[in-house]
């Protein structure tokens, strides 16, 4: 039995390869079109995935983390009165089993900032610089100096806000906030430094203060958030559930809920990647099918001869399908190799800084770097093999249905 199968497989393989070689010009064109289609799909998908993941990175990196824990009612009223007590030892114990890049505790409250000349509404972020290696804070270019520690009583502003307030590093500004008793307090801060950001919105609306110092001014030991960042670009499966269970009294919010617009765009891009894949492969299926129908019609007599001598219909079918599989698998390998080369060339990313406003609106970094998602590659592989089968099935059935006598007479 094994001998029979191996003998027939070698026959089918030999016939398929020779028949493909016989029409090498036509099949080379077909092969090149398959390679181009697969390269196009892989490269474009990698660029789209790169954009998609950069959007997520920006959300996570910009003082949010993958998951943020708040008191249950904080999101409806972002005040220090809706904070919760910081217990670093307990947080560390609960989070130690997770694969985290780190975590940080912060105070985020609304405030009004006043200089001698201007007044602006801002968000004060009270933080401990030692914990901020997981966020954008660690990488912000600073003019002047950043906060030294949590107890630092100075403040850091964005360059755009500094311009609006018409003040300077070293000058003092007044920040108006509500303390733990919901009373407005006015606190004078010296400007330690200014930061530059890709996001003008952040420069205008986010100011940094020492967390410990802020707690003193607000007469509170509370924080308003525990921000968690995983070691992976996306939240691992069950990551949110696991953290929710560890902190039952807090509300765990993932980045999708923190920035629903980006989350919607993320999901839309997921759909777009698959729609794009479907469009390219559907176009390809007709080209392939047409080629293999032609190939079958050209070989009507040969197929008739084979069948008259005792070749089973199943072997006729396998022969046509094998030809299609050979073309598609060669195209797949060629396409993946070419994609790898193109992605190497694009490794430094595509500079979009000329479109800065649009880039910021989409929460993108100024350079789009392609990202290869292995799940997409697996889908391309499965789709290619499926396509080979689908495209060859109709021509193969036509070949199977040929009456050997009629075929021989053709």
């Amino acid at each position: 039995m094994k001998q029979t199968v191996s003998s027939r497989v070698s026959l089918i393989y030999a016939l398929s390869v020779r028949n493909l070689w016989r029409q090498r010009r036509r099949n080379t064109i077909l092969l090149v079109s398959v390679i181009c289609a697969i390269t196009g799909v892989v490269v474009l998908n990698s660029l789209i995935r790169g954009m998609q993941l950069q959007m997520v990175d920006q959300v996570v990196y910009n003082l949010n983390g993958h998951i943020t824990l708040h008191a249950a009612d904080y999101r409806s009223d972002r005040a220090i009165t809706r904070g919760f007590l910081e217990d670093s030892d307990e947080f560390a114990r609960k989070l130690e089993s997770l694969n985290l890049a780190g975590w940080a505790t912060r105070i985020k409250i609304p405030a009004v900032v006043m200089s001698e000349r201007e007044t602006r509404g801002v968000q004060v972020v009270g933080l401990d610089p030692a914990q901020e290696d997981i966020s954008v804070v660690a990488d912000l270019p600073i003019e002047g100096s950043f906060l030294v520690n949590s107890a630092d009583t100075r403040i850091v502003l964005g360059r755009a806000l500094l311009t609006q307030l018409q003040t300077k590093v070293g000058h003092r500004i007044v920040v108006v906030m509500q303390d733990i008793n919901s009373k407005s307090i006015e606190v004078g801060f010296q400007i330690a430094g200014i930061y530059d950001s890709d996001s003008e919105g952040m420069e205008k609306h986010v100011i940094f203060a020492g967390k410990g110092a802020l707690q003193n001014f607000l007469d509170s030991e509370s924080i308003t958030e525990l921000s968690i960042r995983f070691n992976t670009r996306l939240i691992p499966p069950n990551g949110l559930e696991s953290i929710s269970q560890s902190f039952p009294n807090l509300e765990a919010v993932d980045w999708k809920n923190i920035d629903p617009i980006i989350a919607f765009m993320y999901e839309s891009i997921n759909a777009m990647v698959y729609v794009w894949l479907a469009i390219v492969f559907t176009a390809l299926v007709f080209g392939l099918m047409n080629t293999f129908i032609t190939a079958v019609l050209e070989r009507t007599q040969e197929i008739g001869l084979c069948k008259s001598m005792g070749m089973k219909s199943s072997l006729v079918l396998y022969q046509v399908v094998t030809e299609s599989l050979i073309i598609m698998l060669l195209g797949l390998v060629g396409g993946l190799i070419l994609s790898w080369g193109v992605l190497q060339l694009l490794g430094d990313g595509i500079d979009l800084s000329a479109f800065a406003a649009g880039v910021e609106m989409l929460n993108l970094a100024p350079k789009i770097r392609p990202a290869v998602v292995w799940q997409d590659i697996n889908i391309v592989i499965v789709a290619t093999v499926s396509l080979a089968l689908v495209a060859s099935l109709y021509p193969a059935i036509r070949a199977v249905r040929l009456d050997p006598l009629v075929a021989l007479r053709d």
Partner: protein
Amino acid sequence: MEIELLALYDVSRIYGKEATQVHALTDVSLSITKGEFVSIVGPSGCGKSTLLNIMGALDQPTRGAVHFDGNSLSEMSNGELTDLRLQQFGFVFQAFNLLPVLTAAENVQFILQLLGIARNERQSRTREVLEALGLADVADRPATELSGGQQQRVAIARALVGEPALLFADEPSANLDSTATRELCELLRQINTDRVITVVTATHDPLVMGYTNRSIHLEDGRVVEDKTNP
């Protein structure tokens, strides 16, 4: 003792429907016994090829029955008929006999591969048949580079290599000159006598008919004469 291999009972073959019907064969009854060398002769369009195709399980009669080795072909499935053609019959067609993408040896091996014969045995049997038919020196040449006579001999080698019970040859000399035809007929007679393979050939060539030991004459789809040749 004569062993009946193939028997036809009142076989008719009608092509087309109603007004456009063509009666290719009408009530043909005959039997072929093991070891015979039979020619089916008659003018063009008399039904020779149709009869050969029905005998070779390539076509089904409209009426009547065909039995091979006592089994009715009409009761066999398509798959069983395909197996029968592969295991018991060998075919040599008038033209277009070889697969152009294969060499002479590969064309011969084709049948052995369909039969699932092991590689070593395939090669030795192929070599043996090609040598016996004087084709050893063209074994590795592509089928398309062979002369018409060589192609017919390779087709016969392919038909023989599976050791069939019956060899069908449809106008095997149609594209050959008289010298090549004589060589072909000698070869068929040698196969018939040495290997005891029953040969049935459709021909309108008196030269071919002269080599056979039985002639069945057809006219307008009917058997008009069935005689033993001297």
